[in-house]
């Protein structure tokens, strides 16, 4: 019903000659909080994207003479227990968040979730049943314990496998950059993130496929693939955007949690989860509050911005 409402409004204003997306963007731009959130996300993601250029120090560079410093002139946000610059660590953690969220949302939510939702909704019958029952099973698995278990169980094997690839090909530095741990976190999170999208898309497709334009396409002999991708996909595109905006926050949170447990992105790769773990503990917080506050404030801002932006986007798509 969401996309439908948006579609009718879109066609009404089509006289003026603007696309639906332009209208939604116009509505969104008028929301101050949404724009602030967008800026916050852009700053955090941008500093992750350009971490190798912007960061004042390397994220692995240790200086054991100057551990756990507070805010200061040459280390703006202080240093951790190994004397590593906290600002640089935070920027590289943002890069980890960027890589994991974008990869997982692209594969789990956009690719798998959408495709399965479209197929299930359009084809119906046993295919629908099979997909949705598998979805039921995934959604009834207790997410966090399963993710921890999968990461703990597969990490050494995948590392082995990546090392093997390194030996056989000219690629180097994969293992030391923590590539294997990124791969597992990505795969495990993707495995669990498609169900919600698939369900929402399927429900929308169930309504859309009864509409006249689909019947018209069918009677004109359009192939199934053409109907799904040319006629159904645009009808659910707004839902997809909403799913992506909620998915980003959830995935970012999950990666942080996994790394906090020590089964996520592995050191020396930086992660907000690992930084938070180092700063937790009441005594540690008393002595060196910046160990917790630097990653904590960034993470809170990021998650809060995702929530606000998702809300505003939802309103904009629904015509408010």
């Amino acid at each position, binding site marked *: 019903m969401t996309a439908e409402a948006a579609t009718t409004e879109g066609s009404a204003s089509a006289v003026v000659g603007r696309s639906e997306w332009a209208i939604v963007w116009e509505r969104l731009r008028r929301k101050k909080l949404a724009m602030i959130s967008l800026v916050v996300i852009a700053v955090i993601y941008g500093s992750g994207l350009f971490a190798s250029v912007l960061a004042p120090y390397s994220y692995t560079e240790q200086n054991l003479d100057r551990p756990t410093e507070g805010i200061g002139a040459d280390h703006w946000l202080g240093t951790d227990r190994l004397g590593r610059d906290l600002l640089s660590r935070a920027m590289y953690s943002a890069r980890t968040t960027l890589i994991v969220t974008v990869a997982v949302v692209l594969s789990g939510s956009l690719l798998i979730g959408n495709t399965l939702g479209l197929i299930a909704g359009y084809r119906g019958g046993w295919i629908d049943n099979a997909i949705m029952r598998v979805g039921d099973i995934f959604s009834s*698995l207790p997410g966090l314990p399963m993710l921890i*278990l999968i990461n703990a169980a597969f990490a050494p094997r995948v590392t082995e496998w990546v090392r093997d690839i390194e030996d056989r090909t000219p690629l180097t530095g994969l293992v030391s950059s923590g590539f294997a741990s990124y791969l597992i976190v990505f795969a495990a999170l993707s495995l669990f993130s498609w169900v919600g999208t698939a369900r929402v898309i399927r429900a929308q497709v169930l309504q859309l496929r009864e509409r006249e334009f689909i019947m018209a396409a069918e009677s004109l002999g359009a192939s199934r693939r053409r109907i799904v991708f040319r006629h159904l996909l645009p009808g659910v595109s707004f839902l997809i955007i909403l799913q992506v905006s909620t998915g980003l926050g959830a995935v970012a949170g999950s990666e942080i949690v996994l790394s906090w447990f020590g089964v996520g992105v592995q050191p020396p790769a930086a992660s907000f989860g690992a930084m938070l773990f180092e700063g937790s503990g009441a005594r*540690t917080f008393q002595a060196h*509050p910046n160990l917790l506050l630097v990653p904590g404030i960034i993470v809170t801002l990021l998650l809060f911005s995702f929530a*606000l932006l998702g*809300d505003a986007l939802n309103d904009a798509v629904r015509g408010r």
Partner: protein
Amino acid sequence: MGAYVVRRLFWLPIILLVVSFATFAIARFGPGDPISVAAGQIRDDEIVAQIRADRGLDGNIFEQYQDWLFKAVRGDFGESFQQRGFTISEIIFPKMWVSAQLGMIALVIVFGLGIPFGLIAARANGTWIDPFVIGTLLFLQAIPVLVLIPPLLWLFAVQFDLLPVGGWDGLFDIWLIGGVIAIPIPDPHLYIPLVAFTLPGFAGIARLTRITALEVQQEDYIRTARAKGLPESSVALRHVLPNSLLPLVTVIAFALAGIVEGAFFVETLLGIPGIGRFTFQAVTSRDYDAILATTVIFAAIFVLMNLAADLVYGVIDPRIRVGVSRQ
């Protein structure tokens, strides 16, 4: 309705079977195979074979699974590798009781405060109060428990020394007045975990209540109630409130899931001897049978909660049932 219940119940054992097998397979696939953990440093092939047979770890994975399953349905999840001499059931069930007590109190608080917040926001719709309440709750939701707990502990336990740093001492504490009159009060160990459990949960409940209350206010029967001259208070309490609470039934399972996940961090960071901390320790020490047992138990609880929520919703809202039978 009957067919619906039967169909849902039919899926229950299948989902549990698949979930338990998936968990079983992943746990067995992991490194540090349970035998080498059990055999210790000195590896004698004879002893290894003996342990293998004792633990039911000979045979292929399906035979192992079958063996495990038949024991599990009788409540026998094997012996803990971590704490020798204790069965997992002996360890798990007291811990589950601790977590369940905390979780239930948290659930009651989340709904008990979340619903009024949502109604306040809905009634104040159009003023600054509405976005302020919802915005504040959303902000609280965005603070990860991992970030929240250390400052709370520092403030209340270290700096002002009001509350204990962590641990668990039952639900009630006795407050003696003049050494004579004893009044039971909530145990001070409860406060920080309950704050950590409930703060992230309010936003979801409040927003759902607010949205449905706003929708209900537009309904014809509310206009009817106003038109026939009911005072505003009874419109709000008799008509808006009950109908706004309907969809909340479906999110009880979600809210509980959030609390269960929160238990991993809250219990680990605060040293509460519950199932979350136990699972954390089991993961770090590769106690596979324990991980398996907790995951399967969690899955069973999740599936049952979802089923219960759907069935209750079907009873409350007849449209759900009609929709199902039409398919």
